[in-house]
C-alpha cells in the first residue's frame, strides 16, 4: 500500500537551506539523502521530492469559471509544504514508523496519507 508523507517546514527550515553559514546550511541538507537512502535500502521507496521556497509557488484558481493566476502558495499557514516522500509499506503503522524517522527540526510537521487507488 502506498502512502505519502507530506513534510511541512517552518520559516527557519526554508531559511536554513540557503544560510550563508555553511554549518547551518549543512545541518539542513545532510539528513535528507541519508533518510532517502534508508528508504531505498529497506525497499519501501517509491518516490519523493523537495520543493523550492513557498515564494516560488504560483496558485491557479477559477472563481466563477474565470482563470485567476496568483503569486504564492495556496495555504496561508505558518508551516508550508516543503517536500514529500511516497513509500510502499503494508499498513499505516509501518508508514507512521517511517514518518517518525523523517529528519526533524523544531516546528516541522509531517502528515501521512494513504495514496488514492483508482477504481479498477
Amino acid at each position: 500500500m502506498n502512502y505519502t508523507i507530506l513534510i511541512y517546514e517552518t520559516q527557519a527550515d526554508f531559511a536554513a537551506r540557503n544560510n550563508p553559514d555553511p554549518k547551518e546550511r549543512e545541518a539542513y541538507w545532510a539528513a535528507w539523502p541519508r533518510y532517502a537512502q534508508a528508504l531505498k535500502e529497506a525497499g519501501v521507496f517509491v518516490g519523493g521530492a523537495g520543493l523550492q521556497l513557498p515564494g516560488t509557488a504560483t496558485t491557479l484558481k477559477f472563481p466563477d469559471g474565470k482563470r485567476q493566476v496568483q503569486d504564492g502558495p495556496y495555504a496561508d499557514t505558518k508551516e508550508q509544504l516543503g517536500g514529500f516522500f511516497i513509500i510502499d509499506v503494508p499498513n499505516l503503522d509501518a508508514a507512521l514508523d517511517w514518518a517518525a524517522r523523517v529528519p526533524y527540526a523544531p516546528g516541522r510537521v509531517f502528515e501521512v496519507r494513504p495514496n488514492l487507488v483508482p477504481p479498477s
Partner: protein
Amino acid sequence: MEARRAVEQAARDSYARLIAFLAARSRDVAAAEDALADAFQAALETWPGSGVPDKPEAWLLTVARRRLTDAARHARVHTEALPTLLALTDEAHDLAATDMVFPDERLKLLFVCAHPAIDPALRTPLMLQTVLGLPAAHIASAFLVKPVAMSQRLVRTKGKIRDAGIAFELPEAKELPERLDTVLEAIYAAYGSGWDDVAGADPRRKGLAREALDLGRLLLRLLPTEPEVQGLVALMLHCEARREARRSARGTYVPLSEQDTAHWSRAMIEEAEQLLNIAVQANRIGRFQLEAAIQSVHAHRARTGYTDWEAIALLYEGLVRFAPSLGAQVGRAAAIAEARGATTGWRLLEAIPSEDVKNYQPYWALAAHLFKRMEQFPEAAAAYSRAIGLCEDQAVREFLTQQAAGTQSS
C-alpha cells in the same frame, strides 16, 4: 424457538470474536459487521428448518466469509484484501471440519479501536460498538450526542480504519505501554469519572459502567499479567462496589464520606484488593494502579471506621506526577483539604488555571465546599451556583442546592 435461542446464544457468546476474526482479515470493520449481520439473518432463516449446526460459530463464519469475499469482489478498491479473504475460505472450512477453535483476535480489535490515528473522542464509542455490539443509539445517549450524528461518526471512523490501512496487529513490545494506555483510557472513559469525593460527583456516563467493566474484564483475560490492566479493573470494581450506597433510600445523593459502608459490595472490594495486590508486585507503577490505590484507602473505612486522608493525599501527589489531569488535581486538593485544612486545599485549587476549569463541575463543587468551611459565604454561594449550573445529575443538583442553602443569607 430452539433455533432462535441458539442464534441469540451464538450472538452473545461469539459476536466480538467473530467480528474481530473477520475484521482482522478484511481490515474492514464495517464490512465485517455487515457480513456477520447477514450471517445471523441467514441463521434465523435456515436453522429452524435444517436444525442448529454442530458448530454454530463455524457455520456463521462460513456464511459471513462468503459475503465478505463477494463484497470485496464488487468493491471498487481494496482488491488487496481479496487474497486474504480467499485464504479465509480454507480457514473457515478447516474450522468447520475439525475441532480447531478459531483464533481470538479481540485484543487486536481493541488496539485498533484505540489506535492513536483514531480521534480520541471516538475510541470509546467504537469499542462499545464493535467489541460489545452496543447499538449506536445507546452509545449516543451516554455521550450526549444525537443518534444520527453518532452513527455517522462511527461510520466515518471505520472508513478511516479501512482506507488508512490501520494494522490489525499487536503493538511491538517497546510500543506496548503507550498503546495499552490509550486502550485503558478508552475503557475508563466509558466508565466515567471515578472521582466521587467529598462534595461533588460527576457521574456522567454512569449508564455504561457495567459495559466498561465488561471491557476491562475482557482485556484482563487477554492480557492477564499487565499491572495497569489489573489496576484499571480494580479501580472500576472499587467504584462499582459503592453503587448502591451513592443514593439514599429516598433517592438523594450521598457523598462518599457519608456513605453507609454496609451498603458497599464486599465481594467487589475483595476482588479489587486482590487484583491491586497482584498488580503492585510487578513493580511497574502507573496511573490506574494509583487511582485504584486511592479507592482502596477509601474502602478501608469499611473495616477501620475512618479515612486516612494523609495517605490519599500522598497517592494523589503521585498521580498528579503521572497523569496531571484536572480530575487528579482537584482530587488532590480535596484530599489535602481533608488532611491539612480547607485553606491549604484551596491554595492548591486556586493554582489551577481558571481557563481549564470553566466547565469542570467537580472543581466548582469542591471550591464551594472549601469556601463554606473557610466561612467565606459569598464566594461559597457563587461557587455553588456554578457547580449546580454545570451539574448533569438531578440528585447531585439537589444535594448541592441543599448545601448551598446555608451560604445565601442576607
